[in-house]
């Protein structure tokens, strides 16, 4: 391995320069070396694969997805972090990969055949082609002061016990800075530098600890202070000096070490500066790439996490393939055989590439999707030919995948009683309602003749919708049409709805935002398509919640019937999207359809009678407000404990631990209580589970009966744990054997987990005991009936009960 020194520019012109030495970049560089291409691998840090280096010690790294073979000159299989890193180092040495460390690339200019690459230390490299593989972790924000690249300035702290009797300045005011300062303070003299006068961004626990440490003089706190300069000159036996601007003037501190914890800068800005385009502004967007991983900048290839592929194996395969493509070898992608198998049963005489092209052409929705994403989408999807009459999904199922009709047709039952069906034919899609609302299927779908379908999982669809605006727009259009049709006019012709639909629009509301307020004038009707609303009135000087409106229901109907002064306020309980309709065209529809008119009148009557009951009932409305404030507006199934019945025996937790490898997935005591109703810390199986957002192996899913569960292919990365806003996911060791009933009775044995060397921590949370026939063990084990699981629709019972 060659290491290029600071400031030296490299006059050679490389055939391939690979940027970033993660699994993607390393695999690319190794392939280049194997093929004898002149190359260099530029890595910002001083180690290979910084992201992997930063995993916790001893972490078991998984090789997901299992079905995908590995294609790389570098070895990779599931194993400990240490094993994998040492394999990679050996692999790099074996292939004589040419690496330059501490070479953070800050600019790419030029064009195919003549790129120029500049690093932070001022070196320049020249390349014909570039493979960009810098991942998504971003680069640490730098000190932003002269001298910041000194050796004794670091942006990370692996093991605080490594340092003793040093003078260390930690710069930053977030949790990482505070945790580092506290950990180092046991054996060192530690300063913490904060630009402001308080630690506003830190967690409560850290805030207390650091305030305490500063008050006790264990850590020296420097507030309203910025770094002026890092001086590379030894003083007092220390390698350098830190010059600070404080409120009382300049301060010099001779230091052994400066640790800057100022957060990370996401790589997008840098990538855009290189000329690469993103299809949308959404943070989840990934750059446009060709089937050969080439970006819109010809000669610049993007692979790995940065290209939208979140797993190590995918990243390594792409590294290999990208280099082959650069060298002009049109190899078949490694997933070719998998796709061939997928397409095997279909009634089309095409090979894999032809089939992909055909599908992309056939289905309108896919027009804006680039070939690479499309291929991935199909790989994640299921292609099948159901026999006529088969149920694709049934009304009230909790499935949430999305379907396209490739050939033939399906029939959607829009009116159960009259068995009114509409036909969805080749080129169209269905299943978008549940995808958007996160709720049960609103209709049953039957296969028609010659039916060929593609079924895409929710996760893949969401990724697509979030990154390509055009796909979102097309789905939204169809959604509005069908939602209005099935909700208000299942028996009228679509053409009758033209005006209503063209006057309708989509609106987004943040949590707590008001759609309309009591006393206001307004005649718009809102159909909730995602999220949920609360309806409240001002009673005795307080805002009292009267009801909860889930996705699929509508509000504002009173305005339609002439009563344009709103009688109640409506707010978003969680982030919510509604379809807004104007009263004019809607009234025309009512005029034509007497049945609909009675239906709307009936809803108004029910709502009014419920409202008056609550107003008389007292506490119920406040209880409902409380529950909504706990975020239960987005729950589908929630554990509620009536504390006036709960004898605090914790049999619920014991039952959970016993049936779930020794770790209770609920924390009975934690969580708030109002009017004796307690919301313990336990999964609520959200309509749009936040936990699913960022799971690299897609291990989290919702099953047909509605439970959100985590499968065995969890890699233990902890993303879901931090994404769940309700703190219900834990990382835990499994415990295989639980004590028997007898040892519990005789010796009081408790549930246990194993912690052996090869055990791997995994994400665990409530799975509603799907594997037990009887239902949730916690509820079944509660002696007094204090614990129940219920859904927000039933909260109305609470109100009727008056508390």
């Amino acid at each position, binding site marked *: 391995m060659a290491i290029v020194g600071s400031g030296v520019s490299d006059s050679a012109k490389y055939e391939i320069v690979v940027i970033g030495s993660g699994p993607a970049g390393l695999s690319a560089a190794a392939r280049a070396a194997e093929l004898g291409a002149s190359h260099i691998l530029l890595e910002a840090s001083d180690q290979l694969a910084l992201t992997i280096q930063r995993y916790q010690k001893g972490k078991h790294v998984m090789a997901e997805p299992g079905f995908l073979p590995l294609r790389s000159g570098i070895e990779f299989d599931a194993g400990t972090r240490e094993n994998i890193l040492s394999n990679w180092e050996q692999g790099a040495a074996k292939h004589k990969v040419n690496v330059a460390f501490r070479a953070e690339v800050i600019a790419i200019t030029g064009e195919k055949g003549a790129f120029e690459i500049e690093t932070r230390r001022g070196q320049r490299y020249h390349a014909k082609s570039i493979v960009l593989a810098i991942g998504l972790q971003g680069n640490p924000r730098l000190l932003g002061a002269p001298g910041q690249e000194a050796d004794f300035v670091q942006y990370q702290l692996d093991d605080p016990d490594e340092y003793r009797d040093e003078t260390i300045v930690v710069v930053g005011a977030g949790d990482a800075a505070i945790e580092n300062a506290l950990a180092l303070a046991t054996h060192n003299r530690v300063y913490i530098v904060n630009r402001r006068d308080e630690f506003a961004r830190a967690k409560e626990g850290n805030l*207390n600890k650091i305030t*305490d440490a500063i*008050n006790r003089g264990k850590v020296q706190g420097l507030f309203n202070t910025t770094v002026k300069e890092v001086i590379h000159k030894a003083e007092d036996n220390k390698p350098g000096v830190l010059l600070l601007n404080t409120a009382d003037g300049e301060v010099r501190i001779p230091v052994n070490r400066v640790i800057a914890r100022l957060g990370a800068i996401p790589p997008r800005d840098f990538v855009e500066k290189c000329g690469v385009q993103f299809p949308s502004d959404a943070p989840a967007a990934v750059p446009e790439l060709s089937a050969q991983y080439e970006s819109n900048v010809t000669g610049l290839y993007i692979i790995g996490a940065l290209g939208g592929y979140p797993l190590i194996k995918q990243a390594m395969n792409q590294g290999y393939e990208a280099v082959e493509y650069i060298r002009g070898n049109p190899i078949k992608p490694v997933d070719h055989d998998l796709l061939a198998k997928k397409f095997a049963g279909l009634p089309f005489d095409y090979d894999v590439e032809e089939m992909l092209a055909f599908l992309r052409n056939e289905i309108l929705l896919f027009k804006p999707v680039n070939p690479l994403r499309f291929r991935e989408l199909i790989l994640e999807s299921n292609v099948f030919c159901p026999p006529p009459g088969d149920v694709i999904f049934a009304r009230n199922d909790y499935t949430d995948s999305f379907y396209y009709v490739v050939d033939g047709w399906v029939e959607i039952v829009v009116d159960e009683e009259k068995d009114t069906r509409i036909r969805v034919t080749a080129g169209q899609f269905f299943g978008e309602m549940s995808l958007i609302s996160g709720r049960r299927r609103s209709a049953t779908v039957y296969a028609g003749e010659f039916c060929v379908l593609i079924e895409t999982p929710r996760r893949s669809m969401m990724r697509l919708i979030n990154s390509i605006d055009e796909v979102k727009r097309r789905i939204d259009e169809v959604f509005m049409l069908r939602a209005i049709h099935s909700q208000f006019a299942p028996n009228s012709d679509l053409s009758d709805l033209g005006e209503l639909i063209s006057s309708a629009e989509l609106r987004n509301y943040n949590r707590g935002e008001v759609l309309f307020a009591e006393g206001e004038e307004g005649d718009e009707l809102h159909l909730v398509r995602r999220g949920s609303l609360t309806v409240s009135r001002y009673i005795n000087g307080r805002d009292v919640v009267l009801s909860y409106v889930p996705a699929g229901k509508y509000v504002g109907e009173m305005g339609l019937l002439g009563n344009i002064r709103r009688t109640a306020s409506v707010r978003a309980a969680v982030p919510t999207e509604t379809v807004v309709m104007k009263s004019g065209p809607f009234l025309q529809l009512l005029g034509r359809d007497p049945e609909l008119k009675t239906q709307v009148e009936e809803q108004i009557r029910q709502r009014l009678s419920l409202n008056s009951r609550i107003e008389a009932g007292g506490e119920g409305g406040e209880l409902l407000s409380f529950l909504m404030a706990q975020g239960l507006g987005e729950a589908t199934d929630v554990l*509620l404990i*009536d*504390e*006036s*019945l*709960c*004898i*605090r*025996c914790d*049999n619920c937790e*014991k*039952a959970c631990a*016993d*049936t779930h490898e020794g770790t209770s997935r609920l924390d009975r*005591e*934690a969580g*708030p*209580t109002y009017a*004796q109703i*307690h919301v313990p810390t336990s999964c609520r199986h959200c309509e749009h589970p936040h936990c699913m957002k960022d799971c690299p192996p897609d291990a989290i899913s919702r099953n047909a009966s509605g439970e959100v569960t985590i499968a065995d292919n969890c890699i233990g990365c902890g993303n879901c744990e931090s994404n769940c806003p309700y703190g219900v996911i834990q990382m835990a060791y499994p415990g295989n054997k639980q004590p028997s*009933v007898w040892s*519990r*009775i005789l010796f009081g044995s408790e549930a246990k987990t194993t912690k052996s060397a090869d055990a791997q921590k995994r994400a665990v949370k409530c799975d509603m005991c799907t594997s*037990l*026939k*009887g239902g949730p*063990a916690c*509820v*079944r*084990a*509660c*002696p*007094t*009936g*204090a614990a*129940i699981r*219920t859904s927000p629709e*039933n909260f109305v*019972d*609470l109100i009727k*009960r008056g508390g």
Partner: protein
Amino acid sequence: MHTGFLRFADAAYLKVSIILSLASIVAYWWYDPLEPANGGTWLGFTLGSIGAGLIVWLTLYGMRKRSYRSRMGTVQGWLSAHVYLGVSLIIIGTLHTGFQFGLNIHTLSYVLMLIVIFSGMWGVVLYARFPELITLNRNNLTRHSIFREISELDRKASLLVEALGSPIDRMVITSIQLFSVGGGVWSQLAAHDSSKMMIPIMKGDKRQWKKVGNSQQAYLLDMLAQQVSVCRDPAISAVLQELSDVIRTKSGLTGRLLKDIRMQGMLELWLYIHVPMTFALLAALSAHIVSVFYYW
């Protein structure tokens, strides 16, 4: 939304229990044995068998409660049945004796049974009252967060005393060190606060430190009040006031904590009569059955 175990399934087991009891009474009243009423008549034998069966089944509740995978009803249903059928044993068991009591194993079994039953009824009363009181007393805090708040108050107090100097600082610090709640079963149930603190005593011109009780910080609060009243320095006085506020809050939290410990203790303690007496009952019952058949 929630239904307690007493109202489980519209109190179906209450109905079963009433029917069973009435049937036993009617049978007892109607049946006229040749010999004096006792467990040896066919009715006595029948009632005895039902009773013994019930006792064994009532004991099995402890197993069902811990069989977390069991699909045999819910624990709530079992408890509902346990409670109502358990009470019906008073009638079934009493009629089984035929009112023949003496100083023997038979009567011992009967007495043990009544102890278990009445302790159970006491348990039900506790289950009905205490949960709600515990919540009200907790005031949305967990026990853990109460402890955390107390240690936060201690931290504040120890920073405040730095401005005061001896001997108040030492008194406050020792009150923190010698803070103690909980302890043995008895002090838990008595809501006993065994916290102490050290105070200086002048013996001639020598100063000695003596330990005194500081239950719910009362002693310390008195000390502080007295100090405030004699303090002439407004700055020091302000600090003393602030310190008093902190200690008063701590005293309030301690009160809550003690009450919480006491009530949770009460919710469990009765089981320490109910369960051991159950095992004593099972032993006595076995002896009773063996001896009856042996002498038959």
